[in-house]
């Protein structure tokens, strides 16, 4: 019971709840060069991620909009914080390490820039919620790979 409660506290850490309540970079990005939607088939929630990539392949700006559970919104919010100002290939690498870490529980070394994302580790005890935590990251992957319109899922 205590173990259980701890798991829940671990999932809904203060940082997560904070990002869920006040998501960063929320809204539509006017001059987006890339975008993609992510649908979570489990709950039907949909979010859309916008990227503005500059001539040097650097993510100049980013935002997201949509609805979702605390986990998916917090994850999207953390994502925007993390990738802003990063080169595109770095963002793609982040996608790889985060999805691996959450999906396969790989404790792979995290880029210093990703330290904050350890806050998502709690989902690993909740297999049915991993998709919530990775949704925005899959949208990022789709957007960067120009798989525009058709709603992507995992």
């Amino acid at each position, binding site marked *: 019971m205590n173990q259980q409660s701890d798991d829940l506290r671990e999932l809904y850490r203060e940082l997560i709840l904070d990002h869920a309540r006040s998501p960063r970079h929320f809204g539509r990005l006017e001059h987006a060069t890339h975008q993609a939607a992510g649908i979570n088939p489990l709950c039907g929630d949909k979010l859309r991620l916008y990227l503005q990539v500059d001539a040097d392949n650097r993510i100049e700006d980013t935002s997201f909009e949509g609805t979702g559970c605390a986990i998916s919104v917090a994850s999207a919010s953390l994502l925007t914080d993390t990738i802003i100002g990063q080169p595109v290939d770095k963002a793609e690498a982040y996608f790889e390490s985060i999805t691996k870490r959450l999906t396969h529980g790989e404790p792979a070394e995290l880029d210093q820039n990703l330290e904050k994302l350890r806050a998502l580790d709690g989902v690993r005890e909740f297999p*049915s919620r991993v998709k919530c935590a990775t949704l925005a990251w899959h949208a990022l992957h789709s957007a960067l790979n120009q798989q525009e319109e058709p709603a992507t899922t995992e």
Partner: protein
Amino acid sequence: MTQAQAQLGASAEDWRKDFPILDQSVSGHALVYLDSAASAQQPQSVIDAVARYHQEDHANVHRGVHTLSHRATEAYEGARDKIRGFINASSRTEIVLTSGTTESINLVAQSFCRPRVGPGDKVLITHLEHHANIVPWQLVCEQTGAELVVAPIDDDGQLELEALRALLTDDVFILAMGHVSNALGTVNPVKEIIAEARQRDIPVLIDGAQGVPHMPIDVQDLDCDFYAFSGHKMFGPTGTGVLYARESLLDAMPPYQGGGDMILEVSFDGTIYNELPYKFEAGTPNISGVIGVGAAVDYLQSIGMERVAASEQVLHDYMVESLSEIDGMRLIGTAGNKTSVQSFLLDDIHSHDLGTILDHQGVAIRTGHHCAMPVMTRFGISGTARASVALYNNLDDVDRLVEALRKAQQIFA
């Protein structure tokens, strides 16, 4: 509460013991299963009937002259007879066995509608429907050029009857509507609506997936043309369903799928279809599943659907009352006539998060759109948390639900 307890009586506790799955703990807590609207659990008698069938009697049905095949056929066709009696169809030829409500509705869309509708015709559904009673009609409308028309609902999640009446025009080929909404629990006044549709000669399909498990059903009394339901929602196995249909309609419909058992004679020049209901049952059926549904009917009849309905109503009302007492509770679906289901939102906690937190206290509810996205759209929300009771639930289950919701509020405080 004491009053509710008295009304409920001891019987629900007895029934609960018949369901072995309920006697387990989840996340360290005794399981509280409030997700029967998605799929109901099975009494031991159903589980045993299926296992016994495979241990003693299995063979393919209908065409075998040997003992096992004869026993399997008798058991399978005996289950059809039980189902006929359970919904009071006038003849066993009107009981088509399918893989579920979904297939039953697709069958009607493809075999009844598709050959006969075209541009100018309308298919009328309601805003309350499950995707199973929407998408098959969208497909057939796309295929034929017919138009899908949707009757509106009000803020309580009730059909707007006047609007529905106004939509029952001559160009409506079929009215397809649910008996009970799986998302909101609304019980529709289907009998009255069917009577009005019949006056205008409009055939009616009732999606009874959420009706059959919770109340006595009499298709002759309802006077509907089609009534579709699933075995797994009425305490039987998955992969089973029923389409009740008037014999005269079935007679006039082309087959849905082709294969063994639905034919009398096959040659490359042409094929003679089998008599009803077999014309609509191609291939080896879900023999053990159907036998399981027969055992579920036996179980329900041993209790009596009137008693089931009465007992569930007490539970449902107690649940609605208990939920209402929580601060920050928003009930979605507040129709005057409801059964089994209550959808809700709590504070601004996303239903998915609620689901996880409740599960961690052993309480199983469903969250999300419940395969009824248009209902969610109607209420301007993306989903709800939904608790649904069945005959094996008790008042304690409801108390546990409330307690678990308060814990969620603490976490998100």
